[in-house]
Each structure stands twice: as C-alpha cells, then as structure tokens.
C-alpha cells in the first residue's frame, strides 16, 4: 500500500507552503497563524508516526516493570490489597500484549515488501520456463490472493470515491483480521 500518511503529509505540506499560504490574505493574522500551525502540526505528526508504536511499547515496558516492583512494595490495608490485585491483572495483561508486540511496524512492512518481491520473481520465473500447467496454477493462486488483498485495498481507500458501486465494498474494519492473542 503506497498511500501512507508520511508520504501524504509531505505532499500536503508542500501544497500548503507553495500554493495555499501565498494565496492567503497575508494581513489576516488568524488565517496565517492557522495555516502555519497546520503545517507545524503535520510536521510533528510526520516525525511521530514512525516512532509512535515504539514509543508506546517503551512506556508499556516501563509500566510493567514498575508494576512488578510495586507489587512487592505495596503492603498495607485492604484497599491496597485490592489495588495490588488489580495491578497484577493489568500488569499480566500488559505483559501479554508486550510479548505479542515483538515486531516493529517497519519490520512488518519490510517483510511484506520482500515477500511481494519474491512472489513476483516466482511468477516471472514460472512464466519464463514453467509448463502450461505450472503457469495456470500460479496464475490462479496469484489471482485469488490478489482478489482478497485488493478488496481490502479498495475498502481502505473507499472515501476517495473511486468505486462505481461503493456499497458493494465492505467497511475496512470488517475485513481486517484481529491480531491473534497468545
């Protein structure tokens, strides 16, 4: 999927800087300030996006570790015991999430790109030197995989308005499988 926020933000900032801001009434302070803040906010988002997942995992790791320490330190009355029980449960749940969050988004994307490339190489190789039967089989497999993937791609971009019959495309949240729990 080429349409990713960082790429899109870059084009928005350029359009704002080169086309929109110069066309604004430069004496309209509110409009000028809002436009500059729009660019600033987009730049901030662009900087945060690639690190957001790591940032959150980093904090979760720290909280889980701190919970482990607090569990042994928090010895007092009934209220504290109840709070510790709650902390144990949320720490266990947090540790479970962390144990499943082992790959960074960039690694997942890299794996996707590598598999796309090696799948494409297989297709080309089979068409270059494979039998008719092998070519037919590979064609059927790639078409079937593409059909499922493209339904998701089209749903992902439904709001853009390219679809002749938008109602025929399911909403993206109904098509994406949830991340399996360990």
């Amino acid at each position, binding site marked *: 999927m080429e349409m990713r926020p960082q790429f899109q933000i870059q084009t928005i900032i350029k359009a704002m800087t080169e086309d929109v801001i110069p066309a604004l009434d430069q004496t309209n302070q509110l409009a000028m300030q809002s436009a500059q803040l729009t660019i600033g906010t987009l730049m901030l988002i662009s900087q945060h996006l690639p690190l957001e997942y790591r940032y959150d995992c980093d904090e979760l790791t720290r909280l889980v570790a701190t919970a482990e320490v607090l569990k042994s330190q928090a010895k007092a009355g009934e209220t504290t015991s109840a709070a510790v029980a709650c902390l144990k449960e949320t720490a266990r749940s947090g540790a479970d999430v962390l144990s499943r969050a082992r790959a960074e988004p960039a690694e997942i994307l890299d794996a996707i790109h590598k598999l796309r490339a090696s799948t494409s190489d297989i*297709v080309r190789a089979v068409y270059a030197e494979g039998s008719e039967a092998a070519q037919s089989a590979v064609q059927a497999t790639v078409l079937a995989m593409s059909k499922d993937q493209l339904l998701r791609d089209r749903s992902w971009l439904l709001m853009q308005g390219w679809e002749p019959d938008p109602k025929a495309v399911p909403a993206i949240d109904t098509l994406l499988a949830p991340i399996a729990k360990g």
Partner: protein
Amino acid sequence: MQIIDKDRPSPELIASMRKRFEVEREVDRALTYKMEKRSGPAYTKLPLETLVAGLKSLIASQLKEPFEISNAHWLAGGASKLQVGFDLAWNRPGVGRETTRMVLRNDLAEALHATSRLREFQIVKALTGTIPMPPVFWVDNTGEHLPYPAIVYGFVNGVTKPSNAKSGVTGLGTYLPEDVRNKLSPQFVAHMAKMHTFDFSKAELSAFDVPQLGKQNAEWVVNWWDRVWAEDAQEEVPLMALASSWLHKNAPAVEHLSIVHGDFRTGNYLFNEADTRITTWLDWELSRIGDRHQDLAWSTSHAFSVLGEDGKTLLVSGLMPETQFLEEYEKASGLKVDKKALHYYQVFNAYSMIGMTLGTSYRVARNGKSHQDILLAWLLGVGYMLLDEMRGLIEKGV
C-alpha cells in the same frame, strides 16, 4: 536481497533498464532523460518571467524577423504539464503580420508521463487536416531553451465538458447530458476511425519506430510500461508481475498498423458549446504507431465510463453504450473489432494506468518533482481499483 535506489539511479541501473526493455528509440530517449534527471533538484515554482525568457529564446531560434510576446499568464495545465498562455505579434508565414494567441506546454522536473515532445509535435502536424488538431508551432525537445522540454501550440477555443457538467479529478468519468452526447458521439467515432485509417507512411514521423506486422507492436508497448514500472514503482505487486507475464505470453498479432492516440476519451477533446462541434483533439503524448484495439480498449475503460440516466447502461467515455460504439466504429473505419485483441488491450491499458498511478505518481510526488504533488498522491489511489479491474479481466478471459 539487492536494494535498488530508484530515487538516485546509478548509470549502471539506467543502462540495465535500457538493455532489459526493448522499446522505440525516442521512447527510450525520453525514459533515459527522466532517469538521468531524477537525482536532480525537486520542482520549485518557476517565475513566469523565466518561462517567457525561455520562450523568447526558443522562438528567436526559429524566426528571422522580430516578434513580441505579450499577455503571458498561467493556465490550468493538469497534473503533468505547466501551461502558459501568451500573445505573439509576428510575421506569420503565409499570413503576414498578426497577433496569435498561443499556449506553451512545459514539462515538469518529472511528470506523470515521461514522454517526448518531439513525437507530440510530429503527430499533431501529421494529422492536421485529417481530424481537428491544434495548430502547433515549435518544440524544445531537450530543454535547450526552457527549464524543461516544451511545445508551443496555437490557442484553440472550446470546452472539455458543458459548463454545468459534473466530473471527477482530471475529467475522468464526465457526465454529459443526452443532447450533448448525441451530437458528440458520431464525431468521436468518426475521428477515431479517420485516425486509425490515416496513411502514415508518407508523414514526417521520424521520432516513431514502425513495428513489423505481427507481435512486435505488442512487445514494444508492453516493454514500455514494464520499464516504467521497473523504474518508478516503490513496491513490487505480484499481480503486476503476473499481468506483465500474461501480456507477453498472449501478445496478439496486428494485421493493420494505425496511428494510436493512447488517451482517446472525453476530456481530451475540446468542443464549441454553441454547436457541440469538436474543435480539437488534445494530449498526444502517448501516441504511437500500433494496434487500433489499444485506443478502442482505452475508450471503453470503466475508468472513463459513466452510468446513463437509467442507472444501468454504462456509457463509453460518457457518450454511448459499448456495443453501439464498437458497431459504429466498424462501419466508419471498415476495420474489424477483434474481441480477443480488445480484451488483451483492456488488460494492457489497466496495466499501463497502474504503472502511471501506483508507479509514476508515487515516485514523482515522493521526490517533489511536480507542481501538484498532492494531486498525484491523491490520484494514485485509483490504482487499486484498476488493479482489481485488471485482475477480473485476466480471470474472466475473453
């Protein structure tokens, strides 16, 4: 796995692309030019004065007598060109002193189509008198005078759609009222037929290579878009690898070579609103000598179709049902429509449009090479619908 830096292509990478994909010589030159310039600076706003200075230099190189440029102003030029309107006071050959309204179409640092302005110049000259064409005056094919390659046309009056019509970005899927399409449809068919039966053998088309009858034509044009995809796409798409292999395997033989426009659809002609007469055909940059089915398939693409008032009938290029279009084309041209070739070029056209959107649009916007990166970034979204259309076409067969 080898990492290829397509944003800063090495001479070795450029040479390997040229060797891997056999294409027409001028197509090769335009694609090589694109790759050699790619690592250069991003597009920055050009002052009008810079373009006017370049224009003066270009015209001075062509005219011996004095001339004057006035009233230079920006025109909306779409996603792939910068356009400047201007008036030229000059001694026009065969006419005498006059002031002519003209349009400069200038490439960008990198555009949606890395094509040749010389081919565009030659094809427009060649077809003048056969179908409505804009007057064309001069060409700067390598950016010798202007910052980027450019071509100078005469200004032609007309609109691409009625003033009150609805259409999407870049004029795709334009809705035309019934009375308008009833007048435009016969002209659309007649012009395509005349273009496809035009005898190009005596025309000055030195920037075009003529394929042999048979499969060479299809091989060349698929190689062209294979190369664009290889040079521009960021991510491999297995379906594109499959489509390319399928296209090479199923290449049809052409038995009659024609001038092919390459983007023959509503949105690429102008007409007078008063009498609904087509005044000119535009956007010749993808033209070539090849198989008429390439144009027929392009015109019938769902990307350019709209639903009629009944909500069921798909109108080819917003004009008429496909069956009517193809029947009338056969009558007007005397050439047969081969369903297998039509299907083949439907797959091919989807393949090339995906190359333009998911491949080139992405690369150009990523490197900030155009004046409308945000539009290109938006347009690439249509690539997924086209991929699915192509998947369905391959799966369905003829």
